[in-house]
């Protein structure tokens, strides 16, 4: 039963992910943490961080990980196939009707609204990761219990350094992630 559930959950996530990778994270979070309660926030954030560090598409990595943590090898298989199925079938259709699809006004208009929504989603994913690293309490707790909210200086430092290294110095992702892991360890020893 759990295998089927995993398959359909990931198929649903895939069907509504436009823009790949990062845009998928909030969907994962909704379905797996908030609704499904398969994982807690911290476990989920760590899995995504790990999916980021390992090569391959981040969505597939995260699905394989989460599937394995829920139901072993078969869970991984179900999650991966679930994620791949809508991708494969819809793209197949698009490939067969490529020219019609490319010029379809309906598709263009749909996407003119979906794209900005995805920008919002990805921006929200920034907050999701910052909530457990840069901020000392989730940003939305400002609302209810403003006094608890603060910054974690180690997280802020790594965040700013990453912006600088990636944007200005074009350091590759591997280097940055390795450095951030090292700094995470060292800065807390101070």
């Amino acid at each position, binding site marked *: 039963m759990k295998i089927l559930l995993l398959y359909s959950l990931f198929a649903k996530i895939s069907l509504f992910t436009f823009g790949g990778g990062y845009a998928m994270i909030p969907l994962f979070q909704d379905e797996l943490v908030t609704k499904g309660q398969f994982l807690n926030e911290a476990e989920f954030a760590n899995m995504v961080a790990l999916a980021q560090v390992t090569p391959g598409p981040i969505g597939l990595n995260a699905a394989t990980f989460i599937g394995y943590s829920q139901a072993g090898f078969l869970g991984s298989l179900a999650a991966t196939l679930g994620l791949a199925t809508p991708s494969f079938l819809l793209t197949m259709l698009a490939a067969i009707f490529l020219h019609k699809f*490319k010029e379809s006004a309906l598709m263009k208009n749909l996407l003119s609204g979906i794209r900005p929504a995805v920008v919002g989603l990805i921006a929200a994913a920034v907050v999701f990761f910052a909530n457990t690293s*840069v901020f000392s309490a989730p*940003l939305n707790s400002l609302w209810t219990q403003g006094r608890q909210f603060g910054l974690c200086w180690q997280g802020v430092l790594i965040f700013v350094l990453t912006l600088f290294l990636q944007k200005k110095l074009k350091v590759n992702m591997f280097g940055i992630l390795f450095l*951030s892991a090292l700094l995470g360890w060292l800065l807390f020893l101070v």
Partner: protein
Amino acid sequence: MNSLSKNLTLFRVFFSISAVALGGGLTMLPIMSKEFVEKRGWLSDNDMLDTVAVMQSLPGIISINMAVLIGYRVAGITGALFSALGVILPPFVAIILLAMFLTKLDDNETISHIFLGVRAAVAAMILLSAIKLAKQALKNRLAEAIAIFGFIAMVFFEMNAILLVVIGALVGLSAAYLPLLFKSSETEEPPAK
């Protein structure tokens, strides 16, 4: 070149791209045009442009979408299957091996500090890609409003992400078709002055 060896080549190329591509998706693009356009001449530059245009408007995993489009163009449905398998297999095997050893990720304080560091870096990386995407996608006030609404709804009101995508689609459609509706009703009964 017969079709089996073409299929195997597709599999091999996508397998190796997927095995090394950090971040996946669009980062695979330059390697693919090198392999398929420059090296083998199986596709033209225009084919690649078509692929990118279509791929970005389809839901799902970008790298699978890209593999299916290119695989299909090169060798039909079997080509698409071999290419997709090539993309899926490396992360699948690698992650299962990793997951077998890493069942608990939060075991001690050092590991949780290391992960805190990585999460902070990931937050910054996602911010950069959000900014890049915003520059491309937010071309008018309406688009900006959708993005800001989405961000606030997600962060402060825990809106469901799928619902947000559906709302975006509906707003996109209404913005395109509602004005037409009003226009046609205006021609029937002109507004009073």
